[in-house]
């Protein structure tokens, strides 16, 4: 109750503009950040669609409370864009302090949009976090560029992502698995109705479109730049020729689609789909551990590479609890939190840390993690293809809806 009252008084003072809150936070003086954070409530806006992820965030919040006296409230979103919209609406209404969002799980087009509109806490704070010392920015360049946009320390890496396919070895012989988008089309011809992808604009569904586009486009370099209207039609022609061919071979003949990854996973478990994919190599192991998928599920990738990226946390420019958000972002980056996150029994999300930079004990703990039989080792994941510029995602989504948005 007393904590509530204090919060209320603090909020009232802030609202009256009696303190210069923004000037008071200096990320270089970490002790002052820790001191200011005590008693704050961090509203962490993050996708809330998976129970294991929610449980992980709950654990992280409990730790923050116990160690630093910071309360973390997970605002469960079905789409990160809702948090972005809240901040945009607040800025439009002139609410430059005391915003509703303190920390947001973000990457790709949402980050690009927030950066473009100047909605993020700046300047660079992410590389000033104490735990940044462990981050693998040498071997994992995607912790510094989010879909071709330089992060410039405006968001702190939280986990790695790589497109990986899953199949059930009890149903599908491993010798027939496709090794490229073109192969996948052949496989779909042989197995009609057993493949699909989440319906764009779902993130995972659009990622599949980007994977196909990256493989088929004539000049890959084009994708690293914003869309050129003059050549767009020609650039995406191979993608849509591919989709025209594959759509009648999809699950429900392309008249309906899984709504997102977990929906696709459920349909895989039900035996409606035979090949699915995720943006997290450990998803299958986590689902096996959770009793959602049979333990005969295995992973595979395309030998010429699949999309890879990093996801982040960012702090809006008008966040109410900036110190608490910084402290939480740092905690999420700690070897302890990252180790727990990579454990497939808990979440299974690949770490953004460099094992070489960790103290011996932590490194051994990471190496001792049992990733499960369904997870490919780091050396088996194949090359990572660069994410296209966020422009492509938006344009491809719109084009997809125009062409396939009404099944006939």
């Amino acid at each position, binding site marked *: 109750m007393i904590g509530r009252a204090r919060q209320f008084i603090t909020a009232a003072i802030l609202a009256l503009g009696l303190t210069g809150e923004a000037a008071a936070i200096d990320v270089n003086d970490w002790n002052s950040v820790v001191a200011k954070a005590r008693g704050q409530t961090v509203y962490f806006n993050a996708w809330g669609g998976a129970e294991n992820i929610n449980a992980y965030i709950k654990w992280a919040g409990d730790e923050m409370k116990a160690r630093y006296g910071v309360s973390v409230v997970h605002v469960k979103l079905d789409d990160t864009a809702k948090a972005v919209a809240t901040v945009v609406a607040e800025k439009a209404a002139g609410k430059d302090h005391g915003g509703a969002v303190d920390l947001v799980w973000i990457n790709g087009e949402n980050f690009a949009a927030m950066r473009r509109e100047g909605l993020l806490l700046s300047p660079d704070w992410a590389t000033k976090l104490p735990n940044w010392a462990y981050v693998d920015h040498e071997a994992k360049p995607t912790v510094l560029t989010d879909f071709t946009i330089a992060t410039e320390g405006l968001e702190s890496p939280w986990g790695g992502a790589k497109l990986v396919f899953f199949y059930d070895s009890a149903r599908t012989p491993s010798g027939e698995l496709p090794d490229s988008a073109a192969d996948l089309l052949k496989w779909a011809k042989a197995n009609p109705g057993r493949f699909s992808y989440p319906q764009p604009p779902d993130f995972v569904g659009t990622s599949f479109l980007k994977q196909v586009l990256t493989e088929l486009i004539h000049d890959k370099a084009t994708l690293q730049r914003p869309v050129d209207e003059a050549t767009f039609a020609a650039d995406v022609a191979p993608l849509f020729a591919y989709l025209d061919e594959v759509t009648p071979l999809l699950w429900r*003949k392309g008249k*309906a689609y899984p*709504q997102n990854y977990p929906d696709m996973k459920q349909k895989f478990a039900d*035996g*409606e789909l035979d090949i699915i994919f995720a943006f997290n190599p450990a998803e299958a192991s986590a689902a096996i551990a959770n009793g959602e998928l049979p333990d005969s599920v295995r992973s595979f990738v395309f030998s010429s590479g699949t999309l890879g990226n990093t996801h982040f946390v960012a702090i809006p420019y008008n966040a109410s609890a900036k110190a608490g958000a910084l402290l939480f972002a740092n905690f999420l980056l700690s070897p302890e939190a990252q180790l727990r996150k990579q454990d497939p029994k808990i979440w299974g999300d690949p770490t953004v840390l460099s094992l070489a930079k960790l103290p011996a004990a932590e490194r051994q703990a990471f190496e001792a993690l049992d990733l499960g039989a369904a997870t490919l080792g780091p050396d088996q994941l194949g090359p990572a293809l660069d994410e296209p510029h966020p422009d492509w995602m938006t344009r491809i989504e719109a084009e997809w809806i125009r062409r396939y948005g009404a099944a006939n």
Partner: protein
Amino acid sequence: MGQRTRRPDQDRGVTYLTAGNGLLVIILGLPVLAGVAGTILPAFGYLPALGGFRPTTAHLAELAGQPHIHRSVLVALAAGLITTFAALAIVGTFIAGFAGTPIFARVHHLVSPLLAVPHAAAAFALAFLIAPSGLLLRLISPELTGFTRPPDWLLPNDPMALSMIAGLVTKEVPFLFLVTLAGLPQLPLRRARQLMAALCYGRLSGFLISVWPMLYRQIRLPVFAVLVYSVSVVDVAMILGPQLPATLPVRIAHWAADHDLKMRFLASAGALLQLFIVFAAIGIWLALERLGKFALTLLTLAGTRLRQDMLPRAISGLAMAGCAGIIFSGLGALFIWSVAGLWPFPKALPGAITAKIWLRTLPQIFEPLLATVALALTASALALVIAISLLHRNGAGRGGNGASYKLLYLPLVVPEISFVFGLQILAISIGFTPAFPSVLAVHLLFVLPYVLLSLSAPWRELDPRFEQIAAGLGKSPLRVLMTIRLPLLFRACLTAFAVGFSVSVSLYLPTLLIGAGRLTTITTEAVALSAGGDRRVIGVYALVQAALPFLAFLVASLGPQLLFRNRRAMRM
């Protein structure tokens, strides 16, 4: 003097209770109107918070240019009309065929609890049953079907919206049935039946000619509520409805949630279009009413007896029982899923049973549960007090002017998606902080009309002689209200409270948008998790979501039994 005698309730004793009524209507009515205005203005480009100052029709043009928009509109409109017609036909035929029979009482007890099941939970239940990998096909596969793999059937989410219509009908039938039951005692059902039977009419045609026109007049407002709801439903359409393209309300919900704030103008334009569709649906329904009336006149004049009506009667009975069966077995399937380990197709039962998900979920459920109950209790209690005060003030059957509070029914008729969107813009513009009171306020706006609707029929029905005697004995109107009317209407009040409670529990959009995620309820959690598609977790949440209003209805039906255990005439 004359005025005083004509309006006995305008006594000093009740002034405290009722003086604020006009003010109350204004306070409650303003946000309703603001909600509507906040939808219409941005559709024409006026939304200063987002830099829209100049009136423009560009957003309407943009809306017209959206791919496949016509189909989204037509499917929503047709599904709403068909749902309403089917639900009304089933309920009407059933009442005509069975009112006063033992079957009737049994179905009554079976159907009532269904009202407590939230729409989304019922939709999930139906989806779990009818999907090609769902329970029904598992029960008969592979033995009868030969399927070792789920067939590639487009179910649910069929483009014709048949599964969505089925889901909506299943939920609207119990609602219309209970509303009809409330109106039935005021009609001379028995005498009409005897008369028509003496004239050799079949049961259905006799009822249609003699009782139906009076009955329909009484349930007309709820029927329109069903129509508006079905035309503009979001959650059921997301679960069961077509996806390519989705119905208009679903697409508006997506636009309103887009990170690109300019899409809000498009969403507003869409909401305006939605409002027109609702008016169109109402217009078509009015035309159907005319047509029906004409047909009924023809039937009456022709004197056709239609004595062979066993088939339609049987169908309506089966349909009623079917609705209950679908929802109950769907809830059963949800429960099995919530404790299932791995459960591959075509196994009829899961390979392993585990309480893991329940054990993991229950601790997390506690806080949203508390918020849900606190919101629902406060909102429905407030709504009940306001409704009593409004009904008391405006009297019933005394020539009281009831029109002033009809405005409060607007949230029933204006599509939720358009309305909440306007409210949200209003809330942001006036700097409302998202917290318990603001969410409570918006819940009250939605709960109040349902509470009013449930309470006003019994309020009118009550025999006025009790009060006349009390007034004759010199009791003040306030005392009459407290000691005579409210105790007599105790059961009706509890039922209205339970209806309000279940409405509050099931509110998703208002809680999410006005609460800005600050207040999680069972329903916001359930919808967020349904985005994840894990049936185990969905099962747990849907069951908890259904259990809450169910308890409220249980209290509403058992409470009077206990309280009146030594007053035989007050028991049912």
